[in-house]
């Protein structure tokens, strides 16, 4: 017995090994990508952020200088933060409110739900393309359609919304809100998860419409709202194309549409300050991480989870 036990154990080990090999075989593209495209570059950009590095020179160690400069003496960083936070703090809540309101309207059992759902979703699907940015530039231009409509309806001669530094950011916020469709679809899916008998029970208990909304719909929807808010916030911090196209890549007029990512792009690929741009990138990562962490911390107090 002992004698023929040995080869068996070998067989045993081989079948186990095959399992692991198969696992790593199937995972290998991702693994390679993880090391070469994510982990390696992340480590390297962390290092670069502590150097002075341009196209022509080798990286020169400067310690925390880049971060110091960002924090203390970079007016364009401050402008970019200003623009980005305005954009995030206005576009995300507006988008959420719009998406939720329309989802609730649609959930009323309107005929043609699928049609409306599709119509509202379309802008989300194409909203990131250059064509839409081009269109937006036209809509809000001095002689654009918005002003034409205002002229026709109210005889009001509007300014060029794009060229005016005090309004240009709002055209981009409008563009973001225009793309509320995907959030709306997630809300619709969430609304359908709420069991119908809960409303029936509530109306038997004498709860009216608004009470049902605030006591049933809204609390049960908080996980979806939370999820949408986090995703939208992260996406809003990363917005790039519309600002780039609308301002011809400058972030103008007078840095009024200088999104953080646009500033990062300019530093990296126009000024070729790779070290400084890397530092900017990690500051953005930190901001997004902080925002996400805060959201998750706050979730305890307002998000309702089933036990």
């Amino acid at each position: 017995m002992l004698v023929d036990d040995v080869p068996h154990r070998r067989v045993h080990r081989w079948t186990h090994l095959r399992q692991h090999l198969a696992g790593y075989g199937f995972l290998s593209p991702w693994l390679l990508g993880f090391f070469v495209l994510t982990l390696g570059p992340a480590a390297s950009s962390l290092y670069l952020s502590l150097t002075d590095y341009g196209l022509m020179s080798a990286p020169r160690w400067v310690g925390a200088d880049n971060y110091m400069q960002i924090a203390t003496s970079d007016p364009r960083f401050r402008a970019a933060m200003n623009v980005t936070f305005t954009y995030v703090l206005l576009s995300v809540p507006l988008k959420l409110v719009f998406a939720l309101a329309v989802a609730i309207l649609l959930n009323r059992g309107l005929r043609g739900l699928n049609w409306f759902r599709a119509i509202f979703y379309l802008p989300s699907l194409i909203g990131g393309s250059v064509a839409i940015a081009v269109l937006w530039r036209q809509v809000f231009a001095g002689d654009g359609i918005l002003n034409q409509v205002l002229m026709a309806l109210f005889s009001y001669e509007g300014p060029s919304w794009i060229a005016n530094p005090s309004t240009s950011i709002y055209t981009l916020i409008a563009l973001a809100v225009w793309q509320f469709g995907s959030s709306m679809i997630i809300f619709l899916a969430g609304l359908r998860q709420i069991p119908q008998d809960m409303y029936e029970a509530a109306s038997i208990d004498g709860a009216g419409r608004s009470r049902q909304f605030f006591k049933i719909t809204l609390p049960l929807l908080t996980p979806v709202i939370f999820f949408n808010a986090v995703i939208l916030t992260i996406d809003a911090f990363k917005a790039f194309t519309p600002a780039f196209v609308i301002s011809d890549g400058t972030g103008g007029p007078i840095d009024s549409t200088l999104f953080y990512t646009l500033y990062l792009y300019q530093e990296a690929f126009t000024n070729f300050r790779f070290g400084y741009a890397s530092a900017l990138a990690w500051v953005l990562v930190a901001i997004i991480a902080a925002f996400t962490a805060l959201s998750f911390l706050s979730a305890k107090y307002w998000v309702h989870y089933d036990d």
Partner: protein
Amino acid sequence: MTSLALTGIKKSYGAIDIIHGVDLAIEPGEFVVFVGPSGCGKSTLLRMIAGLEPITGGELRIAGARMNEVSAAERGIAMVFQSYALYPHMSVYKNMSFGLETARMPKAEIDLRVRKAAEILQITKLLDRKPKQLSGGQRQRVAIGRAIVRDPQVFLFDEPLSNLDAELRVQTRVEIAKLHADIGATMIYVTHDQVEAMTLADRIVVLNGGRIEQAGTPLEIYNTPANRFVAGFIGSPKMNFLNVSVDGRAGEAVTLDLAGTKLAVRGIDARPEGLCLGVRPEHLDVGSDRGTPLGAMIATHVEQLGGQTIVYGSLKDRQPIVATLNGQKSVRAGEELRLTADLAQCHVFDAGGRRVAVQSA
């Protein structure tokens, strides 16, 4: 030669032991049913035999060869899953031929086998259909067909009838028994349904908590349950377990006290505390002259099943008791009934739950 031998088979997930060392030898052509409550380890045991779960300890031999490290497909077994696990995107034919194609069997041979199995199961007309287009019973046949084509030494069934409705279940049960008679292969069948176990098995293996409680023919299990667990698990309604105390002892003979009624038995020697008397409801009789008197029962509730009358009630000392009477008996709640039973059909279990062989004295 044994068809399948388990020696000290163990299974643990980390520190948790699921199967505690199972020894079992199965003869060629035997129909063995693993039965037990959910979580008893019967499915895990089957899956270890199948090769779907690694064996932690002990040895599995099929036709004499050690199988612990052999892959599932090379063990010469086939399995019918509870969910049938038919490949939804393949036709019935493809479902049955998939394993043979994997083994690179010649096309002509595959075709022969599939058509033969289809004929046995009368599903020839369904060969081009997809599983979606089949009824539950037909899917069941395809699942069995997929096992047959591989011509295995051992068939494994994992609760194969639990997804069928009651009528079809009975019908399929009969067909499985017939299939076993026809092809004569060794079959291991897992179920939690004691009727399936009793009707199908050459031998029943009752499992509980990862251990074999008893293995034996259906009637052995029914007539001489090894312990209180087996006695309670097989049989419906459940066996009555009545507390008795030892009243006196005269040599071999012992007098038991059941709620004031004296019973004289022989065969009990040690540890007379914590004894209990097991009587199946169907072995109780009311108002009969034959058998040993067991005292009076106050009826509290009566169920008329037509062919049988089930009476629920209690003894004088308030111990609950159930009696199944043949035919339609007019018993009213509150009525006092005189119980009798043949002591040969009664069992005494000691404090540890083990059955003690007793004879009437």
